[in-house]
């Protein structure tokens, strides 16, 4: 049983904030996520008032800045130092520093010790309130309160769901390349609260979340062979999924969480199977002599995208969940592996190898409209943020270890993720409840 650092998640309560009957401004202030942002929106986020208000504002600022869609302004230029959520700000003063949006907030601790945050997003040019809410939780949950505020701001200004109140499960790497220690680890999306869930006695690969944020599946490799585990983050309960004589790898949950697709190898040939988690019955979906691996379900659960070299080099294929209608969808030059269906259903992210470089790319679900988003010595293993706008992956440099990186679907915003150490195989959680 892996050592578990229990993460307590008290419910975050959201209530509509009705302290002010400000007229809702017309939404002429928007960020178009489809174009990729050449000019991030300038937003002012002064420290929130009250206990932990400054820290919360910093987390929100870091979230929004990290999306590449927003440019938080330097607080030293602010003329109005502590605007109130219940009073209209001095719009002229914010307009003067070219803020398009202003986010202000106030925390209070109520009699039973709960931390409440009132916040309001203002349209500086239209001079009106865009949203105002109160979130509350236990004080130790303040970072989640901040991420929920970031999500509310992101959603109001882009029209897309946010992705900040999420976690990432990944593999923390340490030790020399020829004797790498690989431990199962989890962190907040912004790199905070990292903790380890295995001790390194065996190597961990490719953890993946179920559609709830509690259950993960991953591959363990020992000298003698591989196994697939199910692991509950909350309870620490771990169980082996099936017993296979050959190699078993590449597990991934179905969208309803009742099945796991995986690769099983027999006598050197790797095929895709689906296991029902209740009955533990497996069904074989592919039968050709090529390598069939990296299955990923479409979000409606009706199809599986996968990787096969049945036609020569590895390419991307799609089939029905019963294995029917297997057909190739990638036809570009290069080797295509690790296809992952977007939570929106519209795109498939993949790793592509051309000559001596690796890329993360996206294509439509029918294989058309390929876009290459990254290029490096070795990029691999994309995972989607729950809003289908950002991809995290691992990048390895020659002679160096692997690190986590993010790129947005337009390819314009790419940056190192916040985990400071060696890390690979990220998997993004759904939005937390």
């Amino acid at each position: 049983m892996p050592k578990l650092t229990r993460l307590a998640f008290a419910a975050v309560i959201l209530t509509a904030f009705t302290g002010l009957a400000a007229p809702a401004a017309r939404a002429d202030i928007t960020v178009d996520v489809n174009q990729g942002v050449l000019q991030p929106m300038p937003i002012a986020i002064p420290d929130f008032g009250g206990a932990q208000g400054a820290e919360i504002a910093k987390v929100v600022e870091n979230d929004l800045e990290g999306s590449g869609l927003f440019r938080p302004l330097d607080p030293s230029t602010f003329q109005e130092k502590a605007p109130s959520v219940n009073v209209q700000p001095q719009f002229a003063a914010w307009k003067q520093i070219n803020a398009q949006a202003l986010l202000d907030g106030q925390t209070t601790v109520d009699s039973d010790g709960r931390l409440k945050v009132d916040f309001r997003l203002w349209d500086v040019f239209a001079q009106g309130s865009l949203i105002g809410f109160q979130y509350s939780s236990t004080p130790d949950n303040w970072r989640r309160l901040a991420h929920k505020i970031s999500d509310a701001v992101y959603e109001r200004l882009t029209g897309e769901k946010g992705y900040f109140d999420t976690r990432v499960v990944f593999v923390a790497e340490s030790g020399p390349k020829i004797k790498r220690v690989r431990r199962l680890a989890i962190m907040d999306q912004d790199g905070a609260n990292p903790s380890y869930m295995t001790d390194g006695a065996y190597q961990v690969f490719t953890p993946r979340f179920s559609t709830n944020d509690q259950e993960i599946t991953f591959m363990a490799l020992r000298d003698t062979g591989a196994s697939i585990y199910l692991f509950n983050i909350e309870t620490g309960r771990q169980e082996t999924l099936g017993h296979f004589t050959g190699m078993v790898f590449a597990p991934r949950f179905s969208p309803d969480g009742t099945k796991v697709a995986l690769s099983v190898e027999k006598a050197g040939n790797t095929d895709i199977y689906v296991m029902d988690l209740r009955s533990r019955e497996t069904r074989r979906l592919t039968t050709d002599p090529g390598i069939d691996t990296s299955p990923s379900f479409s979000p409606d659960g009706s199809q599986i995208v996968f990787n096969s070299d049945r036609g020569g080099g590895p390419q991307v294929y799609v089939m029905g969940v019963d294995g029917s209608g297997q057909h190739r969808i990638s036809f570009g030059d290069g080797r295509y592996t690790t296809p992952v269906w977007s939570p929106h259903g519209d795109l498939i992210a993949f790793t592509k190898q051309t000559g001596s470089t690796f890329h993360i790319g996206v294509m439509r679900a029918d294989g058309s409209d390929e876009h290459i988003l990254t290029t490096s010595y070795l990029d691999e293993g994309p995972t989607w943020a729950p809003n289908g706008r950002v991809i995290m992956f691992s990048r390895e440099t020659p002679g160096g270890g692997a690190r986590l990186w993010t790129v947005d679907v337009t390819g314009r915003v790419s940056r190192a993720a916040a985990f400071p150490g060696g890390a690979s195989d990220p998997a993004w959680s759904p939005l937390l409840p």
Partner: protein
Amino acid sequence: MSNTIKTGLKLVAIAGLTFSIAACATPKPPPPAPTSIAEPTAPPPEYTPPTQGPVSESPSAAIPGSMQDFVISAGDRVFFDTDAYTIRPDAADILSKQADWLARYPAVRVRVEGNCDERGTREYNFALGARRANSVRDFLVAHGVDGARIATVSYGKERPIDPGDDESAWSKNRNGHTQITDGAQ
């Protein structure tokens, strides 16, 4: 005079030669630069040749039927071309010797471990490593080794033997390793 002493003397002679070359090549310390402040000029440290003990040599002490004997008399690792899992001629030589050796020691059980270079993605490489391990296994079985004595595993690209990032390292990391797991002396 024994072989050991001869070798030892030769090494001493070479060490002496190295010393004399080093002594000739060592430039004299430059004259101190004129300066108003008198600085003590430390003389360069005297060169001391590295101590080189004699190299002793004796016949291999590998116990017949041992892991070491297997490595020496057959070889425990065969290499593959990029993306390939067919047995190369040089690999076939080694694997034939492995099969002969395993025929001599029927109690020995092995695990064939398939390995890949890092120029591929993780999951595909687990599958490719499994193909390589099975190619080795199939060869051994075809040369008379009972399949029940051979387990296979794929380590994908996760257990490189050379940490480098060039073709020389990758060519070593594309291999099938025959690991004795039981029955060796």
